[in-house]
């Protein structure tokens, strides 16, 4: 017998299923377009900026798939940590390329 929760706010699921479908389809199309743009950009420095945007798009898609934990990880990793690592690497290799 489960003891009563500390219920903060009761949030019933009020989004109609059709609207959720439209949202998910739109986000999936955006993610596919973002992936294509990311691959077709040949300059790594521009790719870093696009990767940040792609990370945010992925995070919103994961939210639409009812996965807030994955959203948090993907947002931080894709928008902050990965661009920081890539920019540091590019700073190092570009200095040697000159």
């Amino acid at each position, binding site marked *: 017998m489960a003891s009563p*929760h*500390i219920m903060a706010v009761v949030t019933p699921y009020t989004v109609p299923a059709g609207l959720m479908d439209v949202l998910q389809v739109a986000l999936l199309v955006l993610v596919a377009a973002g992936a294509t743009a990311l691959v077709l950009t040949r300059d790594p420095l521009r790719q870093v900026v696009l990767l940040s945007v792609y990370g945010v798009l992925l995070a919103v898609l994961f939210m639409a798939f009812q996965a807030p*934990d994955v959203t*948090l*990880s993907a947002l931080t990793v894709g928008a902050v940590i990965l661009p*920081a*690592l890539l920019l*540091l690497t590019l*700073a190092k290799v570009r200095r040697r390329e000159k």
Partner: protein
Amino acid sequence: MTPVQRRWIFLGAIAALVAFYLWGLSGLPGFGNYPGPYGDVINRVAVAQTNATAVVSAVNFSYRGFDTLGEEFILFVAASGVSVVLRHLRGEQERDDASADWAMPRATDAVRLAALAFTGPIVLVGWYLAAHAQTTPSGGFQGGVVLASAFVLIYLAGEFLLFKRISPVDITDAVEAVGSGGFAVVGLAALGMGLAYLANFLPRGSTPGAVSSSGTIALISFFVGLEVAAAFLLIVAELVEQTLLARQEAR
């Protein structure tokens, strides 16, 4: 093999792969018709069994804790691998510390203000996320990366010497070791008490979803947060140090 030939071979291979994948897909239930039963069973019993309202964290640190231990060790090895691969080659030496700050272009005042103003709140948010794994969408992994991004902010603000001083390699190494070792030791402690490895042996608390409930889940999440933050800090510090190395001219 010329690049054009490579491209055509690739296109043939990927067409075959996608066709095979779509053929396999036709036998699955469609999107949105998840048949269960494992996910449904866990959703039903997790809150009663572990007193944790965040079922994903309960799965991560209790039901499938062993897999998470393995993933954490991958993280540990990747951080060590970065340190090993980026060791100083023969003939490289680090530029003088005093010229390090000066050699980089100075960050503008707007960047410095924003970065330094947000560092405190981000550390707070990271700590909150690592400590609340069992109540709301949070957990050691998310909290750890948010904490690591606070350190990246300090570097971006141009305070490079401060960054070096607050991330000494030995202390960060020790923190990372405590994080991953702590997780393994919690499992061994359960073994020592005669239960299975990584069994949940701490008191579960009375109300589900409180910060102090759910036994070992909160403890493991704290250790994981330490380890992830330290691993990413080590990786970023190694890469930053690489941008400072100057090669002596070969004679």
